[in-house]
């Protein structure tokens, strides 16, 4: 089902990357991880990425460090991906609760999910639905079988 599609996870917290990578690999996806914006841009340029998840507060890396503010690196990446890779689906998963940042991200057509509040199952369902083009079923359907 996954047809080995590639998902790129961009986050500087290994603790965030690990469980999401475990779950996506279990579903058969190929998972790439980037811990800085530099690394993310390099991977986007050479890998056949189908979907990305983006954190907001992130180390831009040495190449972008001079020009990008680490408090809004994710916003920079969202814009960059929408501009350069419009075919790639993107989600933003972050703790950031600043409404104006969230509005800017969602105005790019990128769904914002809040870390700590969104269950992994919900994230997986949303990602899977984008990757397969099939709407995900909610938990309410469970137990009727």
């Amino acid at each position: 089902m996954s047809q080995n599609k590639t998902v790129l996870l961009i986050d500087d917290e290994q603790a965030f990357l690990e469980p999401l990578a475990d779950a996506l690999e279990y579903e058969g996806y190929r998972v790439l991880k980037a811990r800085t914006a530099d690394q993310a841009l390099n991977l986007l340029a050479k890998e056949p990425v189908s979907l990305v998840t983006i954190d907001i507060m992130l180390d831009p890396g040495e190449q972008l460090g001079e020009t990008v503010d680490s408090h809004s690196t994710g916003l920079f990446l969202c814009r960059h991906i929408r501009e350069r890779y419009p075919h790639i689906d993107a989600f933003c998963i972050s703790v950031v609760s600043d409404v104006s940042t969230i509005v800017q991200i969602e105005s790019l057509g990128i769904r914002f999910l809040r870390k700590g509040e969104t269950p992994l199952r919900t994230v997986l369902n949303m990602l899977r639905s984008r990757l397969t083009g099939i709407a995900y079923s909610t938990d309410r359907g469970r137990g009727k079988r």
Partner: protein
Amino acid sequence: MLQAEDHDIAQKLKVLEESNQQLIEKLKTVERERTEYLQNVSHQLVAPLNAIKWHIENINERRIGIERAQKVLKSIYSQATIAVHLAKNFNLMSNLEADHALSQLKEPLRDIDLKRLLINLANDFQPLAWDQEIDIGVSDSRFDSGPSILAMRPLISQVFSNIIENAVKYSNPKTIIVIEGTYKKEDDSFAVRIRNHGIQLPEKHQEDVFARGFRTPESKRKYPAGTGFGLYIAKRIVEIHEGTITARSAEGWTVFEVTLTVKGLQGKARYVSEQDRTPHR
């Protein structure tokens, strides 16, 4: 006459208005800093808790095998340790912000075996360090077997965990963090050094790094959600114990040195040691 008075009042009003405007600007800055601090606190606490929740979901839903689950359980434990460490820092910080002296925390004085304490802390932070293939080691040959020191254990523990956490965050991958200890007989003190290899601390910031909320531009870039309070808290606690703390970088290495006197606060009226707590008969 009346005109002169009017002019005088108008002048005074203008001065008042200007100082009022300055106060408004100051308040706005404080409010902005407070919001940023709370966001960073939230970011730091949510990260390990989110990891714990998602790892547990993976185990529950059997998305990972037994072998992987064993590793994940270690990671969960490590994340919980980090969350507790952060919560302790924020609690200490709120005491400091409320301008309570640390002595009001009324922690009893205890004998602390520094080497054992540091081995335990190194073990606590090792799983976090493994993420970047960093090893934390207490040097056997370079840690003197001196006497225990008399101090407030939870606070001293927080000093070293803040320095070790800092070292892990700003070390280059695949490096080592070395912890050494020297007993100085001449002044009956213990010096602990924590060395790591990574982001350098410029000479001009060697003092600033202990200031409340201070962060070097490079540390801001690498770890945007930091609060700049860990080393400030460490310094305040060391000072309460009448010790010293320094930081310097050279040739790729950064060294934090904490010196504490062995007798510590013994006999100081406001602190109570376990030995002093003889029950009344």
